[in-house]
């Protein structure tokens, strides 16, 4: 009975979504206040009904209701409760339900936190959300219903994919989805503005916080995914340019561009038509990603199901929504083009370059991701472009962006005198060259020129962001250090922390890519491996039986300068039901290095293939991501009042 209620609630919310959508057509006949109030209530109801059906599905999982096909396929009596709950979004049907839940949540939030923009815009935004919600609800009801029954009822379920039985994966999908689906907010805003045909600059300040929030969740979600891959996949990598990773990375790049172009739109009233196009682009990439993941057109570790019917459903929706949006853009956007003069040394120009390179990067990754489809369509054979293409094109396009980050910080709007830039940047530039030279050549003695460049850019970025904070601290009239720190406007922290984070990420990537030691070798019990001043001894393997898997746990003792420090316990787990074997790497981390040990294949009773990696400074990657997220938090919750006082300083 309970699942039927879930089904009914989904249908009800689909009908309410249709009502919400229809509000856009009765503009002329119904009073705006009435429509506004109505749209708010409808939004609450949609969220409520979807939320309850989501809870009902969770309940079905927690109570092992295997009469539901979806539960039977993705859960098991012996699964731990926390994984029973995360199994709700462990496969296609439930993850689409999560998608739509998150969409209704964003919709609900727009209806609450939109007091600073006109009611007519809010109603239009919610209405357009209505059609998006309607589509995804129909998609669930017709092609991917998690409440479908199965008969005969199996006694036990087929268990959750063991890959997903990991703490990192409990929150990775929800976080990623919040960011992914959040791209709908700038999208509906863009459409509402295009429909209206004009814009007030103050509305952009409102949009910017939503964009930062979306960006923050995307960043967090992608980081969690990488972190999980690093710990769980057992070959020490954290990014694979897999189509599904790209599907989340492309919206991230586009929304990062949007974040920056909105600054120009808000402060100078230009780039507005471009910001609107970027908003549409970001959401399109999000929909495209959903299509790529759900239709199975590309081979990926994330492949859920190869189902052309589902793919066609999404593709049709995508064509209609994006096609209409771009058509509307074609008709209306020329009205939203404004010109103002700015010189090549202005902040406008710097941010224009940022947008240009980010957009090109997005398209280069899109091209690489779709290349197998393009080449097979054009009958030139099915060719995938792999990591080398992405690594090359991505670094080549990122270097100029990163380089421009520092001058961009110190330029002013309209025009900056060369003297000012020179005065502020010359010393930092000089220090960065020296510091990066010492690091790259004396501590690490690299052969690669690119390593020098990358480290220089990272140091340059970090130092100039720090300098900006210090400059402002020195000019405030506060006397105490704490009041000084508080008096720095939060947007400065937001910007600086995020940029320092980028610097850290680059350092983490560069050091771990170029200076890692990788040992893949056969070890017998008692064998030792020496790397630098450490040695690692393979003591043995023991069997540990757990609730739903059997683990072969290796024991590795780690000695530093011949003193015992700690033991590693990397595992090979065989899951009882799905018969999968999973690798759990054992990692010891500190700021300076990770030691990463993973068990490979068993060769004989006491001999195993073992992977031992020594990765210097890879932790900086995660610290950098954390700083970016922290910067995002400052951006969302920061005070914007003081903005005007500092706008010359910007």
């Amino acid at each position, binding site marked *: 009975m309970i699942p039927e209620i879930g089904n009914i609630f989904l249908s009800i919310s689909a009908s309410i979504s249709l009502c919400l959508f229809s509000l856009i057509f009765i503009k002329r006949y119904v009073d705006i206040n009435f429509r506004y109030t109505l749209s708010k209530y409808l939004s609450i109801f949609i969220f409520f009904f979807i939320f309850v059906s989501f809870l009902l599905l969770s309940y079905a999982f927690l109570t092992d209701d295997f009469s539901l096909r979806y539960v039977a396929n993705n859960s098991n009596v012996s699964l731990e409760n926390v994984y029973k709950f995360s199994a709700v979004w462990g496969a296609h049907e439930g993850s689409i339900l999560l998608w739509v839940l998150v969409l209704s949540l964003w919709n609900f939030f727009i209806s609450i936190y939109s007091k600073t923009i006109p009611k007519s815009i809010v109603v239009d935004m919610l209405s357009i959300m209505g059609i998006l919600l309607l589509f995804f609800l129909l998609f669930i009801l017709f092609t991917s219903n998690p409440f479908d029954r199965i008969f005969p009822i199996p006694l036990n379920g087929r268990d959750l994919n063991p890959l997903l039985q990991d703490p990192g994966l409990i929150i990775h999908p929800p976080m990623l989805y919040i960011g992914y689906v959040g791209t709908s907010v700038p999208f509906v805003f863009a459409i509402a503005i295009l429909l209206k045909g004009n814009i007030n600059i103050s509305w952009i300040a409102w949009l910017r916080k939503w964009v930062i929030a979306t960006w923050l969740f995307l960043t967090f979600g992608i980081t969690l995914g990488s972190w999980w891959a690093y710990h769980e996949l057992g070959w020490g990598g954290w990014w694979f340019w897999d189509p599904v990773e790209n599907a989340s990375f492309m919206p991230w790049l586009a929304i990062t561009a949007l974040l920056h172009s909105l600054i120009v739109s808000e402060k100078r009233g230009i780039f507005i*038509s471009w910001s609107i196009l970027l908003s549409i682009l970001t959401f399109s990439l999000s929909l*495209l990603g959903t299509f790529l993941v759900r239709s199975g*057109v590309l081979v990926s570790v994330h492949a859920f199901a190869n189902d052309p019917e589902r793919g*066609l459903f999404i593709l049709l929706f995508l064509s209609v929504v994006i*096609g209409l949006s*771009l058509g509307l853009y*074609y008709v209306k956007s*020329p009205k939203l083009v404004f010109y103002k003069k700015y010189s090549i040394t202005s902040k406008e120009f710097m941010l224009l370059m940022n947008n240009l390179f980010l957009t090109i990067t997005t398209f280069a990754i899109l091209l690489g991701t*779709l290349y197998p*489809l393009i080449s097979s369509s054009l009958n030139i054979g099915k060719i995938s472009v792999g990591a080398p293409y992405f690594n090359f094109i991505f670094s080549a396009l990122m270097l100029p962006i990163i380089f421009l980050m520092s001058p961009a910080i110190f330029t002013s709007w309209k025009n900056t005198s060369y003297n000012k830039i020179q005065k502020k940047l010359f010393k930092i530039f000089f220090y960065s060259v020296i510091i990066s030279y010492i690091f790259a050549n004396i501590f690490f003695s690299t052969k690669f020129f690119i390593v020098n460049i990358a480290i220089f850019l990272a140091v340059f970025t970090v130092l100039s962001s720090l300098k900006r904070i210090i400059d402002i601290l020195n000019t405030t009239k506060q006397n105490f250090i704490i009041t000084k720190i508080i008096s720095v406007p939060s947007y400065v922290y937001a910007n600086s922390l995020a940029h320092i984070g980028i610097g850290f990420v680059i350092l983490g990537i560069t050091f771990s890519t170029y200076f890692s030691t990788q040992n893949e070798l056969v070890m017998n019990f008692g064998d030792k491996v020496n790397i630098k001043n450490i040695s690692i001894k393979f003591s043995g393997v023991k069997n540990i039986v757990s609730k739903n898997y059997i683990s072969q746990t290796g024991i590795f003792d780690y000695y530093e300068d011949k003193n015992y420090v700690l033991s590693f316990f990397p595992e090979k787990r065989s899951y009882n039901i799905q018969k999968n074997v999973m690798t759990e790497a054992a990692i010891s981390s500190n700021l300076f290095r990770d030691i990463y040990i993973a068990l490979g294949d068993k060769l004989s009773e006491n001999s195993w293939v073992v992977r031992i990696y020594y990765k210097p400074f890879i932790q900086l990657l995660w610290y950098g991501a954390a700083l970016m997220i922290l910067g995002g938090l400052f951006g969302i919750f920061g005070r914007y009042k003081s903005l005007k006082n500092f706008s010359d300083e910007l």
Partner: protein
Amino acid sequence: MNYKISALPIFIFLGILYFLYNGLYEDPTVIPSPLIGKTLPVFESTSLISNKALTNKDFLGKSYLLNIWASWCYGCSLEHDNLLDIYNNDKILIYGLNYKDDKKSALDWLKSKGNPYSDIIVDTSGDIGINLGVYGAPETFLINSDGLILFKHVGPISTGFYEKEILPLLLK
């Protein structure tokens, strides 16, 4: 910005849409055989039926299907009726390659099930199969009169295989 530039996104989008739609009905896990468009590998063997020598040159000058089969292969018994149908209705010549099989059981198999093959190459060691990139029986190749491989199908062929897959290629 003028109207011309703001139409650009639409065209880019339509282009991408075209590729996405095309990709929808293709199985991403299918990897095209590297031999497509190339000639049949050189081999020298004997005929299962007549015991005479057979080389790749004996097959030039006509279009035909080359079916990789064996008596131990379950999939081959599934597709056998469809092969007989092609043979009985004179749709196209079929040659067989008896893959890693025992001569006697292969002949017994043909006797009990009927023989759709005009001739059969013996490949007891599986060497010819390796050169053809076979990774399991049954597989079916379409080869044209110049000896070029036009098409490869992995797994049992289904009813209407000739009409759906082969005929369009021959008409090209």
